[in-house]
């Protein structure tokens, strides 16, 4: 621990040196504050706002999808454009909304929670954020190029993705940029956590949000280069005459799927592990009781991360794998439900014999608990290979991953915002409005996604713009849910923006219960510009 102490001390000194030529006590004025930002809070804020903007862009695309699927027959869009919408919706929500939101939260909260003045690598932090607007401008620009936006699915399976026109190289380059941004963000998290913890904060004293992000960061560093490799091979197949994925030249299109999902499955956990961390912070606070089984939670997170590397082929049971391969991936996948179950049980045990109150962050965390578990159940069902032969590529899968991504990852992000927004801004938000936002979101998200289980079981394939009349009724219900859910999110944007602008002064502890224990609650609301200039002691 003494190493961490020394490094922390050393850094604080260096930090002060670096800044002595300009205003040390506050941000720069005007646009320079944002463009040249090196402050973890400013960068965190930009990440969060960028994510919110992308959430609405991707959401608008989802509205187009659900509007076309409102009834059978093609009413609004061409099938090719529909495919572009599903492809872009996924890319934007994953790489533009969910991942940047978690990186934003990491930027804001990790220095506050480990007692550091800032992130370890502030200039790289600036770079990793400012890549994103360029990456997404390029991705969104594909909507206006000849041939339209990418339409081969976010999974970019060849040979179909090679049929994209001008958008193809733009997509590849955008993915490279997003990957570079994620890797830099992840390195920054690892370096910060490893070197800048307050004296006395041993690894097993770190808040769970820090733990889950540490593990997530390692996952990112491990798999984003794999994605970069996969898309680069696509690029050379298209333009430079290679045949990595073309059978005619001795390649194998299925190899792309193996490489892609070797990235893709850890990616799934990249989008849910920080959510586990957030929920593990919120539930104890509003249950007024310490987290149950802290050590087990840490080990469960690590086990999930490890298992995430050896289950990738469950995304591709129908490609024709050897029997032994299918057996292995089935069993390994089922195994993931054990550590995930431990987490759910521990959260439940945290609430058990607690003293529970229902502020908006807690409401979202409870909703997460129930609905993520439902997504976990359908995940377990999908792991059974024979049953997967029926479920695969149907709306059952769509329902499954939206349950873990929307009331899973997205609700956890909203819970985090409602939990820490008063700390960030120094203002309380309108609780009543936030509670309304919660109930509308929770009701509509179920109206939106639950019927999709039925559609999938009844035999509706995913990624289709038009369907047979027997699927009409549940599709209409689902679309109504979608419009309701989409509109409800405008309340979220309103609450966030109006709270940034002003509101009732928040206390340092923010929540009246005595249990928020992390270091962030020892600082003022909002915290000073350089969080902990003097490292706090952790006992």
């Amino acid at each position, binding site marked *: 621990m003494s190493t961490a102490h020394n490094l922390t001390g050393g850094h604080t000194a260096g930090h002060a040196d670096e800044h002595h030529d300009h205003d040390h006590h506050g941000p720069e004025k005007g646009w320079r504050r944002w463009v040249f930002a090196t402050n973890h809070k400013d960068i965190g804020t930009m990440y969060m706002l960028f994510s919110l903007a992308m959430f609405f862009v991707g959401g608008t695309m989802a509205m187009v999808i659900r509007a076309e699927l409102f009834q059978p027959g093609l009413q609004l869009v061409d099938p090719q454009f529909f495919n572009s919408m599903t492809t872009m919706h996924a890319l934007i929500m994953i790489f533009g909304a969910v991942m940047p939101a978690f990186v934003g939260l990491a930027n804001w909260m990790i220095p506050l929670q480990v007692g550091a003045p800032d992130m370890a690598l502030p200039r790289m932090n600036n770079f990793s954020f400012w890549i994103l607007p360029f990456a997404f401008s390029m991705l969104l620009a594909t909507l206006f190029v000849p041939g339209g936006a990418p339409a081969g699915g976010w999974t970019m399976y060849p040979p179909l993705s090679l049929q994209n026109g001008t958008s193809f190289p733009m997509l590849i380059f955008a993915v490279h940029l997003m990957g570079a941004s994620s890797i830099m963000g992840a390195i920054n998290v690892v370096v910060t956590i490893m070197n800048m913890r307050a004296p006395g904060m041993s690894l097993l004293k770190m808040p769970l949000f820090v733990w889950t992000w540490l593990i997530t960061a390692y996952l990112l560093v491990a798999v984003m280069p794999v994605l970069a490799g996969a898309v680069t091979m696509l690029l050379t197949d298209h333009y430079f005459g290679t045949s990595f994925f073309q059978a005619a030249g001795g390649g*194998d299109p299925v190899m792309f799927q193996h490489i892609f999902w070797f990235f893709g499955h850890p990616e799934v956990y990249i989008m849910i592990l920080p959510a586990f961390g957030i929920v593990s912070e919120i539930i104890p606070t509003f*249950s007024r009781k310490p987290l149950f089984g802290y050590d087990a939670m840490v080990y469960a997170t690590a086990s999930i991360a490890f298992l995430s590397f050896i289950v990738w082929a469950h995304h591709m049971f129908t490609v024709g794998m050897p029997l032994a391969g299918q057996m292995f991936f089935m069993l390994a996948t089922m*195994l993931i*439900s054990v550590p995930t179950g431990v987490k759910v049980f521990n959260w439940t*045990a945290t609430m058990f014999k607690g003293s529970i109150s229902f502020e908006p962050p807690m409401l979202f965390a409870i909703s997460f608990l129930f609905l993520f578990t*439902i997504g976990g159940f359908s995940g377990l069902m999908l792991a*059974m290979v024979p049953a997967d032969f029926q479920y695969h590529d149907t709306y059952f899968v769509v329902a499954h991953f939206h349950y873990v991504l929307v009331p899973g990852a997205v609700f956890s992000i909203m819970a985090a915002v409602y939990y820490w927004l008063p700390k960030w801004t120094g203002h309380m938000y309108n609780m009543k409005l936030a509670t309304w936002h919660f109930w509308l979101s929770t009701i509509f998200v179920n109206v939106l996604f639950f019927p999709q289980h039925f559609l999938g*079981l009844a035999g509706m394939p995913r990624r289709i713009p038009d369907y047979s009349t027997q699927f009409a009724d549940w599709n209409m219900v689902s679309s109504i849910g979608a419009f309701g859910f989409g509109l409800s999110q405008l309340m979220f944007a309103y609450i966030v923006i109006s709270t940034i602008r002003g509101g009732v002064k928040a206390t340092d502890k923010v929540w009246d219960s005595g249990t928020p224990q992390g270091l962030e609650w020892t600082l003022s609301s909002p915290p000073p510009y350089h969080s902990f200039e003097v490292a706090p002691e952790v006992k």
Partner: protein
Amino acid sequence: MSKILKYVAGGIAASLPASAAFAAWDLNMTVGVTELSRDIHGLHMLIFWICVLIAVAVFGMMIYSLVKFRHSQGAVAAKFDHSTKAEIVWTIIPIAILVGMAIPAAETLIKIEDTRHSDLSIKVTAYQWKWHYDYLDKNVNFFSTLRRDHDKARQLHSGVDPYSVPNYLLEVDHPLVVPVGAKVRILLTSSDVIHAWWVPAFGMKKDAIPGFVNEMWFRADKVGTYRGQCAELCGRDHAFMPVVVRVLAKDEYDSWLKEQQQPAAAPVANANVESAALTVAKAE
């Protein structure tokens, strides 16, 4: 043990509303007309009910805690923060449940992968966006495309009400025809991008991959017409390449096959573009 579980699951499944009258509000997977599809349905119901049981226990505990230990009702929080005994219990029990599920799943999987001793082999080649069926060693092959009137109805702003078209989007010009009770081996490949051949009533889907041949099998034990679709995104008209299979009695199938084999008749070939072009070329 797995047999007992299957019967239990099947029994509960049968009590669920799954009749044709509910078609539009269908809730559950079709039972299907093959042994494999029934096995898969049984597995599906087994795991579904296991999930329901776990959900009742876990959600029950959550709801109990949320109601019982409300701060507003003056609940005072306990201080405990771990219990090794409880954690061991809720690690072991799920593992036991998983083993119980994995055994019947593995049994079915082994059955699914056994493509030996087939009575009939059909090579299915996927195209953007149609299927080509080749009855190996029978000298019968043809394309199967979304039927013309359906194709017209599905165009953007066609003005045709989908409800006025029976089996909207699930009708082809030339369905695949197979005999009832025969083990049909499907050899799948593709000429362009990856597609997937799927008939829910047969319980199986598999990818058609360019440059590779995949195998699957089914044995339909009920005469009838069964419909499915391409299940792997394959481009613009992915939604418009249905699979239709007619299962005929053995003698009817034989006479159908004979009819197809007569070179003069070949009525099924007319609709496909390639042979139409060929006819034109010959006429010239």
